[in-house]
């Protein structure tokens, strides 16, 4: 439980948590598990079941499909939720590009986490909408 004050500060800077007051943010910080990855380590693995939801705190990750880099994500980005929501393994590897620190919600705990923090979920929905727009320029 140590050091969660710093984590709360860090989270409060991220767009995803912009709507949360400090006590709720404290609850979130205690629910999330921190993880650290070295350069080249895989965080999500294409085709593996049982994955989690991740929010990037430090560093960059590469999204790779069949070994080919498709995107880069930076601080504040999140990933892994689609596989859990859809109940399917991830369609891509997510690999640390340099040292990376993330916070994590386990797949089976994600639904409850989102239900508890609907504002966070709405922010995710907005981001997801942007992804859909960029994936499909003709979206109305």
């Amino acid at each position, binding site marked *: 439980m140590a050091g969660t004050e710093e984590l709360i500060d860090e989270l409060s800077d991220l767009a995803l948590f912009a709507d949360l007051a400090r006590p709720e943010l404290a609850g979130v910080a205690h629910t999330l598990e921190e993880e650290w990855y070295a350069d080249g380590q895989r965080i999500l693995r294409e085709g*593996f079941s049982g994955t989690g939801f991740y929010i990037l705190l430090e560093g960059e990750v590469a999204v790779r499909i069949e070994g080919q880099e498709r995107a880069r994500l930076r601080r504040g980005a999140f990933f892994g939720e689609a596989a859990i929501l859809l109940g399917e393994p991830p369609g891509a590897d997510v690999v640390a590009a340099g*040292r990376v620190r993330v916070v994590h919600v386990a797949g089976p705990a994600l639904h409850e986490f989102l239900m508890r923090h609907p504002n966070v979920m709405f922010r995710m929905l907005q981001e997801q909408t942007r992804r859909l727009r960029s994936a499909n320029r003709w979206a109305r």
Partner: protein
Amino acid sequence: MGEVDARPFPPGDYPLVVVGSGPGGIQVSYSLRRLGVDHALISADEAPGGMFRRFPFFQRLLSWTKPYAPVPRGSRAYERYDWNSLIGEEPSHRAIQPEFMDGTSEFPSRPEMEAQLAEFVRRAALPIRYGCLWEATRRDGDRFVLETSDGEYRCGLVVFAVGVAEPFTPEMPGRELVAHYVDTRDPETYAGRRLFIVGKQNSGFELASGLLHWASRIVLASPRPAKLSVETNSLAGIRARYVQPIEDRFMGGGVYILNASIEGVERAGDVLRVRTRATDGGMDLAIEADEVIAATGFVAPLRDLPALGVATFGPSRLPAQTPYWESASLAGIYFAGTINMGSPGLKKNGVAGTGAVHGTRFNARILAREIAERHFGVVAPRPALAPRDVVGYLLEEATDAPELWNQKGYLARAVLFGADGPYDEGIVPLQAFVDGSGPDGVAIGLEGDSEGVIRPAAYVRRKGAVSEVMLDPDPLNEFRGSSDGRARLTAALEGLLR
């Protein structure tokens, strides 16, 4: 059993130094010695046992040793039912814990655990330098220098098995009024007192359970709702042993459980007042208590290692580790024991490798083998397997292997396919297998799925790409005879079983 030098390993030059005489340090040193790797073992303590010389306070462990198991005592398969004995290579070094239990519980008492660890050290005649405190660390070229209370140790490699038992209390106004879990007194001194416990993890609930019939009122508070192990289907969460306070709370028995952050503690006359802020939309409260105890966890006592380049993360300030428990940021520094939680593994469905003895004793043996091979050229044999036996062997391991059962989703049995056919690679960290390169191969482990149902999981590596093959569960966890498992594995290994 030879004579053991009372103060072996004086300061000086060693290829490798192990620090710590808890279960982690003892197991890794024992396994290194078996492999003939020369090293020193030093510890600040005066006797073996590590944390178990003091904790858990209420004197019974969370980890079982079942006196009556479906397999013979002392066999490899028995290790799955005996979570506390260290892993010996000779009959007299094996399954020591049940010899030291009085039969009143399958959970050994703290002194029984301590006695078992001391007996293991005695029977194995394991030399340990006690009363030697590691104080600081520096580099000297490609070697390390450990400065200790006895003098300097120079070495190429270090294994830190220093535990995760340094008390931690978060910063808050009035922190000096708050005791820590480690300061807990004899239970009768809490008679009739109102307690406020900060923290809702096992140590908080251990205190609440132990003091339930002494304290007049117990409030447990922390920002996050308590999770039970029977809900998470894993060792993460409040263990079944400690749920009595939760039942009392529902029955109105003077136990209160709040989801709130602690804003501060102040003195109000003879008593303390704790200001809490709800994290779940509930009320903010000021609660009076006679004692406030922080069960807010422990950190790894890494001293100056972060300054030397050891990356740490998370609330317990664990060192980030590779799948083989080497510092992820500083080569040559390894970790053993409960501090291995800094290498959580694949964490499928959120389940990390365990930091308790039943899992980390196997990590330590694998670590010893890895160090012996990588740094000392002592290569373990890899027995050849007949191609037609591979599938049966994997299912056999899924049924019985204690490493797979006690480190689910974390340790696996690997069989590799070389130019001369399949061979047994041994028990390996699953993450090392799925993310590593190497010849084609298969690794099998056990995993709880999202509902907590245990299944064998196989990973097949072909030309560097690894695919997952989840096998069906069995109501009695008997995978050996599974015709479906056999068929699925055979299909997954098509073309490799030659």
